[in-house]
């Protein structure tokens, strides 16, 4: 099976029904996607498939063959963090950090569709991602902050 992950192609041998999460973690050592519940309830396993947030723990790997998969490992541009990653740091939007990779990717997907979301939109769209440490309000703040940064850099790019 051919997978395209973070802009690279890789051929894997796997049971086609095997959840993408375990292929990423155990075959490809991409452990940013976490196991939290195995039933798509917590969002710790979130990855992007063609830019859209997916629960990799309930995504059979065959369904994503040939599609563009982005994991948290593929988000930064070299040493330069994605604005969402940077905003999570700036807003101290984590405690144990176990939900963070999934949160960051869910937020990236949200901002792609809704560049300047309201509080209510952020809460609604991220409601499937759990943070047991309870840093939700900080995550909302981080998403707003990242939205502003992305918009500003888009404006700059347009003027350049």
């Amino acid at each position, binding site marked *: 099976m051919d997978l395209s992950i973070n802009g690279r192609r890789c051929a894997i041998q796997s049971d086609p029904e095997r959840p993408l999460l375990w292929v990423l973690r155990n075959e490809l050592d991409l*452990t940013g996607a976490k196991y939290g*519940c195995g039933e798509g309830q917590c969002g710790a396993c979130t990855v992007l498939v063609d830019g859209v947030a997916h629960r990799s723990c309930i995504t059979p790997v065959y369904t994503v063959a040939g599609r563009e998969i982005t994991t948290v490992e593929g988000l930064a541009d070299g040493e330069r963090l994605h604005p969402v990653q940077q905003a999570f740091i700036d807003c*101290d939007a984590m405690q*144990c950090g176990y939900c963070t*990779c999934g949160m960051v990717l869910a937020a990236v997907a949200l901002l792609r569709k809704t560049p300047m979301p309201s509080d209510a939109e952020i809460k609604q769209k991220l*409601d499937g991602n759990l943070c*047991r440490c309870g840093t939700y309000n900080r995550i909302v703040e981080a998403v707003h902050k990242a939205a502003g940064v992305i918009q500003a850099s888009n404006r700059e790019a347009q003027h350049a």
Partner: protein
Amino acid sequence: MPEWRRRDFLRTLGGGLLVMLSAEYDVAGQESGGGRRGEHDLPSDVAAWLHIGRDGKITAFTGKVEVGQNIRTSLTQAVADELRVPPSVVTLVMGDTALVPWDMGTFGSRTTPTMAPEMRKMAAAARDTLISTAATQWSVPKEHLHAKDGFVANGDIKRRASYGDLAAKVDWVNVIGNADLVTPPTHWEVAGTDLPKINAREMVTGKHKYVSDLKLPGMLYGRVLRGPSQGSKLISVDTSAAAKMAGVVVVRDGEFVGVAAGDERTAEKALASMEAKWEEKPPANYKYVVEKFHSLGSESVQASYQVAYIAHVPLEPRAAVAQWNNGKLVVSTGTQRPFGVRSELAGVFGLPETDIHVLMPDTGSGYGGKHSGECAIEAARLAKAAGKAVKLIWTREEEFTWAYLRPEGVIDVTSSVDAGGKLASWQFVNRYSGPAGLKTPYDVDEGRKIERFEEREPPLREGSYRGLASTANHFARESHLDEMAAKIGVDPLAFRLNNLKNERLRAVLVAATERFRWSKQKATASRGFGLACGFDKGGHIACCVEVAMSASREVKVERVVAAWDCGAIVNPNHLKNQVEGAIVMGLGGALFEEIEHTDGRIHNPRLSQYRVPRFTDVPKIEVILIDRKDVPSAGAGETPIVGIAPAIANAIFSATGLRIRAMPLLPALARA
């Protein structure tokens, strides 16, 4: 994983020879479990706690562990402060039993009040010794020198020496920590500031390796056979189908049955192929008798409050990676008690503790739920039988069912007041849930006060939780206070202040209610306001909440104002984060979290069945921090959780007139 010994570790840090040898001796002394210091006394010498490399890099060692409470950051601040260096040159080694001084565990909000002062003592003594060493070398009075940014300098003659060069001349095992040299909070420079989370970058990039992310060469993936209910006994099991599967190792050791395989899917299939018979042993049902209460005042209230079993639900379930090397065991596991787990492993495998190495990478949360070593033991059993490293990650269902729960309980309270609205008597009996936070902070004569906790043999496995029973006891006490205030027609805030001398508790109560504009808030059928306060473990909390009520009795907590005082503040932003997090976690237990169970069976062991707080549940939260530089810092991981549940119950009462005396409140409200 390489089996680190402290000498190898320090060699990689480029340490001086004397430091290496003394450190090795030190650890050997601790690991004997007895030895020259007696059992588990903390080492008093700097060598056990600190290492200053030739390059000036500082490594500090602690048995405390990081589970999201941000002590990696706050302890780094303490060490950097005393050594007068930027925090970036300090690295903390945490929870690695081969490298750090023995520690009981990370619980009870003990890190900030006990570990931070201990590490400050060591770092302060190190600073003083570096200065003395330079003074001797240059034959100048010590008072002319100062330590700053990695150098001891003499302002008069413009001479300086690096910490690294000076440290190499010191026999650190003979340097004893010194509390007299510790910097008071009024002079802190690194502590008291918003140092960002030390390894936040690793968290947002996925580079941080939690235990469940670790992988060793040739490692197998394990699964364990479980019975249908707590207390069930294995009668028989047919493992023949599993044993025939390619690459599957079946392990049977008494009651323990497990499998290990080259990938997680094969292990799962092998486990599913087993046919087991179990005998279930339902736990005894307990009945309790309400005892007679007596009241002394003119008005009295008697009421009974309940709390349900709830689960911690750490987002990273229990996980362990175990490997045996020549009869010695190395286990990485997410635990709040690495040395406790080492003892458990020693007991199970009949090994001396010196042959067991437990490592604890920063872990995906605990909340008091990761004290025990069962996952580490299971992984070690599998690894021993397989002759290979084995990783075991508990499923969410296992975490719900086979870890332990916060106890349920019933709390009976009877109180009376005199004509002046002062509490005249107070009887408070907690059955089963625990004694934490049992004692009332309100003024009642000792002779007119009964406060008691009664234990029982629990029907389910239970244990620690953030704040322990403090949540239950505050729920009962603060709900009860409101009931009495309502009965005598006094405002809940005025009633509390009339019965409270504790200055710090009064201060948070006043701060929270002022910000909340308590006196201006008027409850309606669709909007309620409630408050609660409490203190435990050196922390003082007051919570005001505003709830919106729908006609169908749906409750939405819309706003929380909390004031918090735990002494001198180490990291304001992280402290706020802890208080906010505790309130969010407390919201779940207050409103809807509940383990459903009968006869030792857990009926809702999944996130689709057990509701925890999500984004849309979370109110606006304002936290007011009171910085008391004149009071030693207390911990903040637990006590901020205790105010939210009674404040919500009191808010619901203010809107509806319904007094809900059971947590979680929502199902109880629906029944009311």
